[in-house]
């Protein structure tokens, strides 16, 4: 069986290589036509100096007013666990439009997944387009053991950005990283490489070359 397959490949090697090269060329074209969307992060306020921990206790709502030109895929916020292992609680977040106050979407995540000092990604999956003047609202509930998570802020003052707790504006802002969509062509390089490899192989094949693999003769 293996002998048969090898002989078939040997017989058709030029066609197979040509087919491979054609697929590579198609892959190169497809890479340009359909680039891959991925999440690119851009630190906005990331100085981890003079940090303040703001507890997200039951009933506390933290708001972050900001403006973005590009569509946001999510946001990363620096959380604290107060050096404890969180065992319960759900963190909710919602994005609203500053202009008319309507909700663009909301989601939630489990508090025990958070580690101390972790920049936690809060994806806006399934949200309406998040761009322009926005409000990010964060709160936590369902904590059963009194160990609440918190959010770090630093004293950085940034134009057009404001952080508040229960409506009271803070002298500083959350540690923030914005996540935008970006595009790349992850397979393009491979297609080019394979194309050249196949070209090299094609160069050493000959039309109507005699079969190479004879296989072992049975006794």
């Amino acid at each position, binding site marked *: 069986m293996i002998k048969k397959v090898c002989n078939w490949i040997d017989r058709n090697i030029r066609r197979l*290589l040509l087919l491979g090269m054609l697929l590579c060329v198609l892959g190169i074209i497809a890479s340009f036509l359909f680039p891959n969307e991925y999440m690119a992060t851009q630190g906005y306020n990331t100085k981890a100096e003079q940090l303040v921990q703001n507890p997200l206790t039951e009933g506390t709502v933290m708001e972050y007013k900001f403006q973005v030109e590009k569509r946001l895929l999510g946001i990363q916020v620096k959380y604290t666990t107060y050096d404890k292992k969180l065992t319960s609680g759900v963190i909710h977040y919602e994005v609203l439009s500053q202009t008319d106050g309507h909700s663009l979407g909301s989601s939630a995540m489990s508090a025990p997944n958070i580690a101390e000092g972790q920049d936690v990604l809060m994806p806006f999956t399934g949200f309406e387009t998040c761009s322009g003047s926005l409000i990010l609202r964060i709160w936590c509930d369902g904590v059963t053991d009194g160990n609440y998570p918190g959010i770090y802020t630093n004293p950085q003052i940034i134009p057009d950005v404001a952080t508040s707790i229960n409506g009271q504006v803070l002298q500083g802002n959350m540690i923030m990283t914005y996540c935008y969509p970006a595009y790349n062509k992850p397979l393009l390089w491979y297609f080019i490489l394979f194309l050249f*490899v196949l070209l090299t192989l094609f160069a050493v094949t*000959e039309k109507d070359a005699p079969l190479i693999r004879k296989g072992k003769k049975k006794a």
Partner: protein
Amino acid sequence: MKTYIKEHWRKLLVMAGAVILLTVLVELLVFNFHSLFDDTYTTRYDFAGGQTYDHVKIEDVDYSTTTEQDGKTVESKGLETDYTFTFPEKMYIKKLHIGYQSPVDFSITMNAYNDNGYGETAATEYYDQSLAAFTDYYNNIGQDATGCKIRVVNNFNGTIDFIEFSNELTMNPYRMFFLAVVFSCILFLIFGAPVFGRKLEVYFAFLSLLAGSIYIIFGGTLRIGWDEQVHFDNAYSNAYFSTVQYTEAATIMKEAHQPYYNTLEERQYIADYFNSKDNTDQAVLVSKPRFIPYNQWAYITQTLFLAIGRLLHLPFTILYMFGKFGNLLLYTLVVALAIKYAKVGKAIVAVIALLPTCLFQATCYAYDGVAISFTILGFILWLNEVLDKEKKLKWYNVLAIVGCFVFASLPKAIYIILLGLLCFFPKTKFGSKKQRIFFIAGVVAVMITIIYTFLFPVASQTSMGNVNWGSDVRNEESETGIVKQLMMILDHPWTYTKLLVGTIFKTFCDYIFGIGANANFAFLGAYSAQFTYLFTPLFLGLGFISCQEETKYVLDKKYKLLIGVLVFGVFCLIWTALYLSFTQIGALGFNGVQPRYYLPIMVMLPFLCRNKTLVCHGKLQNYNRIVMAIMTFVVLYGAYSIMLPFNV
């Protein structure tokens, strides 16, 4: 193989029995000599309730020392507690065990007193750290003592619960595994003569897998390899599709914060500690791209084994070692294929691949194993083609050679220069001139595609005028930057050429024959420098002396020159890469170049020396057997002297 086992099963069974018997005997009679022939005992002194003992003196010493730092006098305060024991009679202490509670890491030093043979009392010092996360300290002593002083340093707000001396009989599973491997190899070397002729790959695979397994098991969860935490993170994260589950244990590993151990007991409780922190329900979830970047394909078997291990719900310590085993398996398989297909110089390939550093790198989280093994296989396949000038090139051979060199250079692109060897195939290997030109053009295009991965970022940043781009963050001491450094070289080409060539020649012997390249276990330490006296004649012998059977295959001078030029080119690229990324701008020296970077091309050097003048008229089988006996000793020596002490 099946037939061999069928025919020789009795012999194999007897040998297995002999190995087990010898292992148990040596473990008992040599390593447990004092437990068998002196008194076995465990003496515990409890201090938790403030107990006192007649022959134990406890003394607290608060001290403060002053040191000069940057022209300022800095005072540091410390706390020492001395426990001085005077034993009623001389006794053999095998192990020291201390129970403690402490909120901070602290150190314990033991001075064991004994007669030095001249009638005077001499002290031997044993030092180790105790970690706040645990409550037991162990240290191997292994000497007679008439008394001892145990000094506990800076155990602030902590307690010592008990101190225990023991001389118990212990059958150490790690040492027994090592002994079993040693005896198996000896028996193979004695009774497996036919294998060393034309089937050397069998012995290579046997030794590589067994010795490699020893390296993996003895290394355990210790941080042993160069930048191993980074390589582990790459392998681990690729084992997940788009969201990585970092358990606490995995996070400890990727941040290189794993606790250190140096005794069997410490290893056990640290394993329990890791396994208890591998709860996937509490794992931190991190998103990642779905595609494996081109420079991380070298971790593919490590990644695969980690993924399988996760599916099998292996305990974390086992999973960590299992991932390394994937690396070893690929390395062994690729090199065994190279030995199998080598028309000439099978022993050279086996020796280079069995160099302790090569094997060590194949048993760590690293990409060196892939770079070394695939370069070896690619070179051997190329050599076979060159030695058989009349045989036309076949597409599958070309695919194998190109595939090997490309895969080897994915993690470290500079090795792609070796693909240039393909441009110099004899004309007789091609059907026509046109075919040859197309072939060379294809090879050059593949080389450029790989070179593009490291040249493009430099070129684009230079063209954008970003002169500060490309500094290596690991080198905090000095100002570095690829673009600035490159401009410096281009401004002073002659000065740089002199510096580069001078440095390559100055370091050549040390980097080829020295232990830095050949017998280096990274953070665990290197072999004794005296091994250079073994490697030098071994390499020179392998290079210059060949067996009668191999003399029909000697490379033409033209090809020797070509290999020499390409090897020198790779040397230049290695030094230049580190000069650009890791060396202070405009420095008259190089930083960051390690001898191990030469390993992927080491296999080519002995073939440059092969000739028809110096010929060994003995049997190839015996020649290979002697060489393999030496390498067995070399490979297992490191396991015993460097790695085993962490596990007894």
